[in-house]
C-alpha cells in the first residue's frame, strides 16, 4: 500500500533531507554502496567526487529518477517514498541539472509558467505576467522574461534555472556543477545568492562540484564519494583542500604539467582580418590579428557563445571564411586534409565524441583516422588492418585508454577515455600546430591533469598551441599568453605571468 503524502502543500522553509544506506546496483556493478548522508535544514552541502564516483547516481536516486536497490530517504526526519521525480517535487525537492533543462525557443516567462503543475488550459498572460513580476520583486536577482531562452547568456540561463526552482516552491535544491559554464564573477554571484537563501533559512542546498575554491568560499559541509562509497566529509571549516583532494582520489598520483621550457619560435599560425558571420547570422566575428608562435600556448578565455567556437570552426575548416586570411607557416591555410598533414596541424575540438570521432566505429578505426589512407608519405588505397591494429594497440597502451577491446564502438567509452583516444590520435607523430577547444570539459581531475600534461609536453617539444577554453583556471595554468574574446573579437591580451584575474574576468563579462 502506498502511503499518501502527508501534506500536498510545499513547505514554506528550508527542509532537512537525509539518506539511509542508499545502494544502487546496475546488474553486477555497484554504483552506490550504503551511502548515508544527512543534509541539515538551511545548510549549503557539497558533494565531492571524481567522475564515476557515483555522485549523479546518488542525486538521481534522491530525485526519484532511479529506484535505489536498497536504502531509504528521509525528509524532515520522516521516511518517504520517492518513486518518481514528481513525488520528489511534491516533497519540495528540486534539481538544477548540469545541462540546461530550459526550452530554448520559449521565453523565460513561458518556461516558468509551463514548468508549473497547475498550468491552466488557457494561459492568461496578463495575469501570469503580473504574478511573475510580483515573484521577481522578492528575488535577489532578475533575468529578462520576454527573450527566447536560447538567446540568453549561460549565466543568465543558470540564474533562470535557479529562479524556476524557487518559483516552483522547492525548498531543497540539488545543484549539479552549476558553475561549469559561468565566469568566476558570475559563479560567485550565483553561489552568493544561493548562500544567502540558505542562511536565511529559505532553502537547503546540495551542490555537486569539482571546484575547491567554491567549496571553501561558500559551503558549510562536504561529503565525499569514491567508487560509490561515502568515504568522508565534515565541516568545511575543519578541512583543508588537501584533505578533500586526498579523500576524493585515494592513493593515486596526479600527473602534474611538465615544467615550462623556454622556446622562442617562429610564428606558425597567423589569422588576420577574419570576419565570418556567427552562428545566428546576426553578428559578425572579427578576429583582427591573432598570432601563435612555435613553443607557446596562447589561451583564449571567454564565456561560451562569444565567437570562440566560430573561430575554432574557421581554423578547422568547418566554417567558410568570407574575408581575411588564415596562414600557417606563411602560406594560406584552408584546413584541407592535405594541408593539415603537410604542416602537422592537429585538432582537439570540444565534445570530441561529436566533433572528432565517428561514434559507432571502433576505437581502432577512430584512432586510425589520420593515417588510414596515407603511409610513409604515399597515399594508400587498401586499408591495412594489421597496421591499424598495431598502431591502435600501441596508442591505447601508451595513453591508457580504458576500453573493453579495440573493436568496441568508441561511443561506449567514458568521456575521459574518448578524449584520451582522440589525444592519442592527434598527438601521434610530429605536431607543429595544435588547435584545442575545451579539452577537459566534464572530465574528472586525474584525467584533466594527464591531458594538461600532454598539452604542455607538446608545447615544450616546440608545437604552437592555441587553447580555447571556458575554464579560466585551465587557461591560467597552461597559457604563456592570454587573450580574452568577447562579442566576437579579441578584446584583451596579457602575458600569463603577469595576468590579473579580476581584469580578465571584467573583459570576459564585456566591460572594456
Amino acid at each position, binding site marked *: 500500500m502506498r502511503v499518501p503524502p502527508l501534506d500536498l502543500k510545499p513547505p514554506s522553509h528550508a527542509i532537512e533531507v537525509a539518506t539511509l544506506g542508499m545502494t544502487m546496483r546496475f546488474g553486477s556493478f555497484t554504483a552506490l554502496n550504503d551511502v548515508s548522508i544527512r543534509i541539515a535544514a538551511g545548510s549549503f552541502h557539497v558533494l565531492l567526487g571524481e567522475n564515476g564516483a557515483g555522485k549523479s547516481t546518488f542525486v538521481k536516486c534522491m530525485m526519484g529518477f532511479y529506484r535505489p536497490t536498497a536504502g531509504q530517504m528521509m525528509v524532515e526526519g520522516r521516511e518517504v517514498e520517492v518513486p518518481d521525480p514528481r513525488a520528489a517535487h511534491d516533497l519540495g525537492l528540486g534539481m538544477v541539472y548540469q545541462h540546461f533543462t530550459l526550452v530554448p525557443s*520559449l521565453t523565460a516567462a513561458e518556461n516558468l509558467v509551463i514548468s508549473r503543475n497547475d498550468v491552466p488550459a488557457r494561459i492568461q498572460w496578463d495575469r501570469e505576467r503580473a504574478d511573475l513580476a510580483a515573484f521577481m520583486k522578492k528575488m535577489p536577482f532578475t533575468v529578462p522574461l520576454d527573450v527566447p531562452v536560447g538567446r540568453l547568456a549561460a549565466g543568465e540561463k543558470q540564474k533562470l534555472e535557479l529562479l524556476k526552482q524557487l518559483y516552483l516552491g522547492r525548498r531543497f535544491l540539488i545543484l549539479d556543477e552549476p558553475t561549469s559554464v559561468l565566469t568566476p564573477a558570475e559563479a560567485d554571484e550565483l553561489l552568493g545568492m544561493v548562500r544567502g537563501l540558505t542562511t536565511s533559512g529559505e532553502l537547503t542546498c546540495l551542490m555537486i562540484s569539482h571546484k575547491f575554491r567554491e567549496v571553501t568560499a561558500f559551503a558549510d559541509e562536504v561529503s565525499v564519494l569514491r567508487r560509490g562509497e561515502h568515504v568522508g566529509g565534515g565541516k568545511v571549516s575543519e578541512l583543508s583542500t588537501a584533505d578533500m583532494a586526498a579523500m576524493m582520489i585515494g592513493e593515486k598520483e596526479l600527473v602534474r604539467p611538465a615544467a615550462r621550457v623556454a622556446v622562442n619560435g617562429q610564428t606558425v599560425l597567423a589569422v588576420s582580418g577574419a570576419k565570418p558571420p556567427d552562428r545566428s*547570422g546576426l553578428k559578425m566575428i572579427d578576429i583582427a590579428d591573432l598570432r601563435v608562435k612555435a613553443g607557446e600556448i596562447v589561451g583564449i578565455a571567454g564565456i561560451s557563445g562569444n565567437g570562440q567556437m566560430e573561430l575554432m570552426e574557421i581554423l578547422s575548416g568547418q566554417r567558410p571564411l568570407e574575408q581575411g586570411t588564415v596562414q600557417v607557416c606563411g602560406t594560406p591555410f584552408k584546413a584541407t586534409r592535405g594541408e593539415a598533414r603537410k604542416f602537422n596541424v592537429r585538432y582537439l575540438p570540444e565534445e570530441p565524441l561529436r566533433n572528432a570521432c565517428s561514434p559507432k566505429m571502433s576505437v581502432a578505426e577512430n584512432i586510425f583516422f589520420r593515417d588510414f589512407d596515407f603511409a610513409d608519405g604515399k597515399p594508400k588505397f587498401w586499408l591495412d588492418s594489421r597496421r591499424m591494429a598495431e598502431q591502435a594497440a600501441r596508442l591505447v597502451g601508451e595513453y591508457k585508454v580504458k576500453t573493453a577491446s579495440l573493436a568496441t564502438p568508441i561511443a561506449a567509452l567514458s568521456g575521459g577515455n574518448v578524449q584520451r583516444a582522440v589525444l592519442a590520435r592527434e598527438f601521434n607523430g610530429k605536431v607543429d600546430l595544435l588547435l584545442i577547444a575545451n579539452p577537459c570539459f566534464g572530465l574528472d581531475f586525474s584525467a584533466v591533469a594527464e591531458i594538461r600534461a600532454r598539452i604542455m609536453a607538446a608545447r615544450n617539444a616546440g608545437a604552437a598551441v592555441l587553447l580555447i577554453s571556458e575554464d579560466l583556471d585551465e587557461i591560467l595554468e597552461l597559457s604563456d599568453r592570454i587573450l580574452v574574446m568577447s562579442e566576437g573579437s579579441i578584446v584583451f591580451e596579457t602575458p600569463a605571468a603577469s595576468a590579473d584575474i579580476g581584469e580578465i574576468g571584467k573583459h570576459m563579462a564585456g566591460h572594456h
Partner: protein
Amino acid sequence: MTDDIGLWGVPLAILGGAIRVSTPFIFVSVGECLTERSGRINLGLEGTLVFGAMSGYAVAYHTGSPWLGTLAAAFAGLLFGLLHGFICKLPRVNDIAIGIALMIFGTGLAFFFGKPYVQPVAPDLPAIPLGFWSSLPQVQAALNMNVLFIAGIALAFAASWMLKNTRVGLTIRVVGDSADAARALGINVNRVRLWSTAAGGALAGIGGAYLSLYYPGSWNEGISSGQGLMAVALVIFARWSPVNCLYASLLFGGAGALGPALQSVGVTSGYYLFYAAPYVLTLGLLVATSSRTRAMPSAPGELSIIK
C-alpha cells in the same frame, strides 16, 4: 463592356487560384506544422490526403451530405496520424521511413477501396459567392469562396494563438524543442507527439475531402498531384509558423494558377513550364532563404532532419 477583360485576367486568375487551390495546402501544412512543432515529421500526409479524399467522397455519396463526408475524412486522417504516431513510439523507428511507408499505404488503400466510387457523383461542399457585387463572370468565379477555405484561414490563426496562449500549445512546443526538458517537466513526450500527429492527420484528411468534394470535385486516382508532399516542404519554407503556412499556401496556390491563366490570354509557348511555377518558386525561395552556416533559429530542436 464585354466579358473579355484582357490581361487583367491573369492577376484575377492568380487570385482565384490562390483561393481555390490553396485550401488543401492550408489544411495539410497547418496540420504538419503542429506535428513538426512536436518534434516529428509525418511524410505520410500525402497518403492521408488521398485516403481522406476517397473516404470523404464515399461517405458523402452514401449519406448525401458533404459535411458528413468531410467529417469521415477527418476521422480517417486521425486514424492514419494515430498509426504513424503509434509506430514511431516503438524503439529504433525512424519517423521519415514510417512516413514514406504510410504514404504508399494510404494511397494504395484509397485506390483499392475507391474503385467503385470513380463513376458515381457525390454532392459538393457549398461555396459562398463573394463575387456577387460584380457583373463580370471572371470576378464571380474567382471570389467564389468555399467554406473550408475560410475555415482554413481561421484555423491557421487559431493554431498560432494556441501555440502561444494555451497549455496544450506550450506543451507541444516544449516537446518539439527539447524532449529532455519535457521529461524533466513530467510531460509524456510520446503521448504529446502521438496526438499532435493525429491532429495533423485529421487536418490532412479534411484537405483531402476538399479535393474530392469541391475542387476538382470528383474522385479518381490522379486526384492529388503531390499536394501532401509539397505541404510538408511548405512547412519548412514557412519556418514552422501556422500563419506563415497560410501565406505560403496562398502563394503556392496563386503560382499554380499562373499556367492556365497565361494560356487563357494566349501565351502558349512554354505552357508546361508555367505549370511548374509553384515548384520552381518554392525551390527558389527555399534556396534564397537558406544558409549554409547559420542555424535555423525557429526550427524545432527535436526534428530528426535538423538534428
